[in-house]
Each structure stands twice: as C-alpha cells, then as structure tokens.
C-alpha cells in the first residue's frame, strides 16, 4: 500500500498524506458526495483468510460503535469500509497539534493540562455511557485544537490492533506505558482502564516526567502493575493537593478503588481547575495593585504522600511532613545525645522492687501487708 500511489479509496479522493503509523497510513481525502475534506485512516488487514474474517466482523462492530459517538471531545467517525487489503475509516479532519507533540515542545501549564484532561474525561464519560471503551488513551491519541479544545482520536481502533497486530515473538504492539495494570495483565478491561490511562497522561502533563518509563516492555509492565507513583506535587510544587488526590485516585492499581466513572473524574478536575484559575486571578490582581502575593496556601509545596497504610512494608519509608517542622527531632535522631540512651534501649521489664515503689496499687498492698504483719507480730509477742 505504501509503495502504490493511491488516488482513491472507496469513494474518497486522496488529496495527500497526513501521517503514518503501525497500523497504516492516514490520508487527507475528499468526500465527493458531500464535498467535505476528511481524514482517511487506513488499517492494514491480515493476510490469513480466517483471521481476516474474524477481524472483519470485529472491525465493523467497533467502527459502528465508534460512529455513534458524536461529542465535542471525540473525533467524529463519518464512514468506514474495506478496500483490497486494508480497511478504512473516514473521520473528521482536525487542524491541531497532537498532545504528544505539544508535550515534547515543553512543559504544559498546570491549568492547561487539567483543562485538557477534564475535556478528555468528559469525552470518555460520554463514550463509556454508550458502552465504548477506548483502550488506548495516550498523548498520541489526543488532539489539541488551536482554541484549546481537546479531542480523543481512534475510538475503537485499539482493540483491533491489540488483537491482530502482534510481533513474531507474540508481544502485543502498543504503548504499555499508558496501559492500566489489568490491561497489562491481559485481564478484561472496562471504562476504568481508560481512566487509569488518562491519569497517566495527566501525570505526565503536569510533571513533565514519564511515569512508568522502563528500558523494555517487561520492565514497563512491571512498573505499571507494581510501582506506586510519586505524588505530582513532589515533582511540581505548584500542583494543588486536590489534584494530587485526583491523580492518586485515577492511578489506583485496583480498579475497584479507582474512579468508577470518567464523569466523576471530570468533575474533580473541574474543581481543581477552578482552584488553579482563582489562584492565577489572585496572582494577577496582586501584581496589578502593586502588592506581592505570598503563598500561604498549605496546598502548595505540600509534602509528598506515601503509600497507604496497608502497603507499607518494613522496607518502605514515610516522608517527613512539610507542614510541620521536625528538624529538631530529626537532628536528635541523627546524632543522639548521651541523655538519649533510652532511644536505643528496649523497654525494661518491671521488677518487683520497681513495681512496689512506683505502682500505686501494689505499693498499697505491700505497705499495708507490711504494717499489718508488724502489727500482728506486736500483738503476737504482747
């Protein structure tokens, strides 16, 4: 397909090439019936007849489901079909920048990142309500339009790829860095998997770091399933505490304690966005009036959060709280003084003498017995 110069696919007239991926080529094409320019995504089909039949069935099912999704934050699918050895999808043509490209250009402003994430969460919520799970939420599948509108691309495509496009060694092609733990483990996935993936995207946007980066796929898969994330506020002090909590909830390894609904995630992100914008406004107002804004909000530069109680093993650590000054005690622990000998000793068992000299009850019994014994002796001896 790549070598053959195509001029037409189905009824679509090819105008030019927009990009190439693992699955096929994306063309700019024109729909002569509606005189509309579309993005035509081609997907290479399997050579195996049996596999192709299966694929065919699934492709039409998924494409139909995706075609029903008309939402401001989802790229609209207009049409789909099959031609020779590839299938194609005619989609809304967007003039914008992929989030992946935008992230490479430099760090995103936190408010901008949260805004993008809440738009994507809204789009996902809409799709999930209709029973469609994306399965491949990643920066490469999010398009940012010039006015800041975010759109999710490639709904329904991921499943086709993950099932059909495998390497000779049997490894699933894709981006495990953004997959949910259940997806990496090959378990059935639902809408919560998309929420996890969006959590990873948001994390990377606000921290500028690759969350589950690894040298190879098994390493990444291990990180996704086992490694707890460092709270974003630790890497970017401007991250408000509520955003920390929202990200933590989206990134729960256990889907049961994750956000169950993308709309719920979107609502929390909107609250974070409101906080961030009010902070920005306060900052601007301060500048305008010639005053200096001093951040006293405890949510800024806040302490890193540690693993939950149940996951603390003896070899893990809890970070010092930045809300409290523990310097004096840390110094004392670091270099114990002579008087701190007790800090290095196990509690002593309480012996008889110490017990009767300090403990009120036994002391009363002991002394009264002693006095009574003396009285008894006095009486006995006359």
């Amino acid at each position, binding site marked *: 397909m790549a070598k053959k110069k195509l001029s037409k696919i189905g009824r679509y007239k090819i105008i030019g090439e927009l990009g190439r991926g693992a699955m096929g080529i994306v063309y700019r094409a024109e729909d002569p019936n509606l005189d509309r320019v579309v993005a035509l995504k081609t997907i290479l089909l399997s050579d195996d007849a049996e596999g192709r039949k299966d694929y065919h069935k699934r492709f039409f099912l998924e494409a139909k489901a995706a075609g029903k999704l008309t939402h401001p934050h989802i790229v609209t699918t207009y049409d789909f079909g099959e031609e020779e050895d590839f299938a194609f999808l005619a989609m809304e043509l967007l003039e914008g920048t992929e989030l992946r490209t935008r992230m490479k250009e430099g760090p995103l402003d936190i408010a901008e990142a949260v805004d993008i994430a809440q738009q994507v969460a809204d789009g996902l919520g809409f799709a999930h309500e209709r029973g469609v799970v994306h399965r491949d939420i990643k920066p490469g599948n999010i398009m940012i339009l010039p006015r800041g509108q975010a759109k999710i691309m490639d709904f329904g495509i991921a499943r086709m790829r993950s099932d059909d496009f495998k390497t000779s060694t049997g490894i699933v092609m894709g981006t495990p860095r953004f997959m949910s733990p259940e997806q990496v483990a090959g378990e059935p996935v639902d809408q919560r998997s998309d929420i996890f993936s969006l959590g990873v995207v948001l994390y990377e946007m606000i921290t500028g770091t690759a969350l589950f980066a690894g040298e190879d796929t098994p390493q990444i898969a291990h990180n996704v399933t086992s490694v707890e994330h460092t709270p974003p506020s630790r890497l970017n002090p401007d991250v408000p*505490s*509520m955003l920390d909590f929202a990200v933590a*909830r989206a990134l729960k390894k256990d889907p049961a304690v994750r956000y169950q609904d993308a709309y719920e995630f979107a609502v929390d992100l909107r609250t974070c966005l409101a906080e961030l914008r009010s902070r920005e406004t306060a900052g601007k107002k301060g500048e305008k009036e010639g005053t200096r804004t001093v951040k006293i909000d405890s949510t800024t530069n806040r302490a890193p959060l540690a693993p*939950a109680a149940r996951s603390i*093993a003896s070899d893990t650590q809890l970070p010092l*709280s930045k809300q409290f000054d*523990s310097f004096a005690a840390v110094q004392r622990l670091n270099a114990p003084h002579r008087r701190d000998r007790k*800090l290095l000793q196990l509690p002593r068992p309480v012996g008889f003498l110490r017990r009767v000299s*300090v403990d009120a*009850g036994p002391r009363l019994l002991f002394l009264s017995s002693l006095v009574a014994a003396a009285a008894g002796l006095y009486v006995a001896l006359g």
Partner: protein
Amino acid sequence: MALVTNGATTALASVVFLKMHEFPRRPVTEQARLRAQLEAAVAITAAELDPASRIVLDAADGAAVVVLGDPLGALRLAERSLFAAAAGLPLAIGINHGAVQLAGAGRGDEGLAGDGIAVAANVAEFAVPSALLVSRSFRDALADVQPGLETQMLSAGSFTDAGLRTHEIFAPDHRVPRRRHRRYLAASIAAAILLVGAGVGARIQAEGQEKFLSAVAAKYRDTTAQGRSYWRDLMSKVKF
C-alpha cells in the same frame, strides 16, 4: 541495642499512626477537606510535645507522628486526636513502639523507615474508626516509663497482617485504674485483717483467750487513763 545500620542510627520510638478510614474511596473534595482537618488536629495535639521529640510523617491515607522517648506523650496525642473523630474526622489510630531509621538521600525525599512505622500502620489498619489500638511493644514501653499504666491496656486479641506476622493488640480502658485501685484496696484490707488476726490467734494460742482479753482490756484502761487513745497508741508502736 544501639543499632547503627549503613551509617544511620536506628532508634526505638513510639509511632502513632493516624489513619483516615476509607480514605481512598472518598470523593476527592472530601479527601482534601479531611486532609486539612487531619493536619489541623495533628497541629493541635502535637503542640503539647517538645519539638525535639516529635517527627510528623505523611501517609497517603493519614499521618504518622513519631514520638521520641515519650510513650506517655504518644498516648496522650493519640487520645486527644480521637476527639477529632467527634468533629467528623474518621480516624482509626494504631500505636507501636519500635525501630525507626532516618531514610532518604537528602534531596527532598527525607523520611523515616522501619518496623516501628510498619507495625503501627498495620495496627491502625486493623482498628475501626474512632478506635485506638496499641501493640504489645507499646504496652511494654508504657510499663517501663510508668509501671501500672500498662494495665489500662486490655487485650483486644491478635491479628495477622498481610506479611503473615501476628500482632497482639490492646485497647485502652480508662475504667481499669479505678477498678484496679478498688481491688488492691480490698486485697490490702484483707491482708491486714489476715495478718493482724494471725498475730491475735498466735497470742491466744500461747496464752489462752481469757488472759489475752484481760491483758488487752488492762492496756486499754491504762492508756485511756493516761488520756491517750488505745488504738492510736497501738498504731504508733506498729509504725516502728
């Protein structure tokens, strides 16, 4: 017992783990509110402690306060924090006395690690909201600083954590000191009666009942005739 591991001193300290019940399942707005409320509660309760004796640590679902050399202070802090539960903070508290060690490479990731923290977290995990549980080692530490206080900690059973370690746990009961005092008072009176009675018995056996009673009556008369109280006189002789 002075333990030095990889250059970092390991000390024994009381760890109060304040865990917010069902924290991960709560809406994020509520999480933020609860976190702020917990920080306020810790600020108030920890203010009673010497700053050189307490280290506050953050946990994802709560906080831990490491108290150096003051198990009584740790217990007070935990009990005062429980009052916060009345203000809508769903706290479950676990206290342990165990090893803690400074950790982190000094790049803003400083913290404390150790079994002392891990066990406190496990105990807190086991506690129900508005409840305080302590480990056996904390009970022993209390006994060491104030013998008798440990009896306030009544056995609440044992549990096995995710690492298959069994922990014996205790719950405070403030009615215990009064009950214990009454028991010791009764035992003291019984012992006194028994010992004085034994002396009287021995005297009667040696002299006979009539002689003994007449001797006591004569002494009683003598002392009262001298304007003194017989019983007071008897007590002053007994007091050496």
